């Protein structure tokens, strides 16, 4: 096999080009180079400057065909859809705000742990559950008639989840986060990149 074609095959294998496609490209290339040689034409007349850089040539061709692993298909961009990120950011921001409000409300009407313990013992002595709204907690399943701690807990969880989510979404908003690094870019292939 032609040394140039061998080098191209090696590069296609490295890039994860499907075997069938690589075979097809190698076959065409080899046939063209053989015909050019029979015509007395130089390989450069067939391959242009690509003849001097088989790796770049092979990568450009495979990328242009869209057969390199990770290459976006036609009509599919590699970027995340902005509205999804925007929505996620807004939801997280709302969670943080609600969390802060809940923390403030819970803190304002909260009772001490000792108070809860006192109430627990008092409630357990009650013949029936209190009529006021409460939450079911703990292995002993008793009602807390005061919602302060639950609201505080709810607010804290919401605040933390919101903060973490907000951090992630803002990190994704970074200008460089949506770009693929270490792979070939094919947006400029009117001619190969080595031209």
């Amino acid at each position, binding site marked *: 096999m032609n040394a140039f074609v061998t080098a191209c095959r090696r590069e296609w294998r490295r890039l994860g080009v499907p075997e069938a496609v690589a075979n097809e490209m190698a076959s065409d290339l080899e046939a063209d180079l053989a015909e050019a040689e029979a015509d007395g034409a130089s390989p450069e007349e067939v391959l242009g400057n690509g003849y001097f850089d088989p790796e770049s040539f092979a990568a450009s061709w495979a990328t242009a065909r869209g057969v390199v692993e990770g290459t976006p298909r036609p009509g599919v961009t590699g970027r995340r859809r902005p509205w999804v990120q925007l929505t996620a950011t807004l939801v997280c921001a709302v969670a943080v705000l609600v969390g802060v409000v809940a923390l403030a409300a819970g803190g304002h009407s909260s009772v001490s742990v000792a108070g809860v313990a006192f109430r627990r013992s008092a409630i357990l002595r009650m013949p029936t559950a209190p009529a006021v709204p409460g939450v079911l907690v703990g292995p002993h399943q008793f009602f807390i008639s005061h919602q302060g701690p639950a609201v505080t807990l709810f607010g804290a969880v919401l605040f933390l989840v919101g903060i973490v989510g907000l951090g992630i979404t803002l990190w994704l908003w970074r200008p460089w986060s949506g770009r693929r690094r270490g792979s070939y870019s094919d947006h400029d292939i009117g*001619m190969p990149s080595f031209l």
Partner: protein
Amino acid sequence: MHHMVENGGRRTQLLRGVLDLCLLTVMADGPAYGYEMTKRLGARGLSIVGEGSIYPLLGRLERDGLVDTHRAASNGGPPRKYYELSSRGRKALNQGVFEWETTRDAVDAALGLTTTEVTP
């Protein structure tokens, strides 16, 4: 001091913008495989020696649906991949030729390469 593009670089840049049109044009003469297109370009006076290869560009044209492909036996040789204009490619060629002519005429006028007749 202005930076001028060297002659070779300018030719490369100009070709970069129109080589796809040249390929589509030679394909309009009939289906052709890679090297056959290189020969057709050469017959029209356009050599790619010292420039990039046409193969990545053919891949791009195929990917964009501007050409249709099929495999067929070549004259006495192994089966080759033949490229031919698709209907979408023909439209793109017509549009591209129009854009080229418009741009070329404007540049010619700017460079003073054409004379405009002024009626008295």
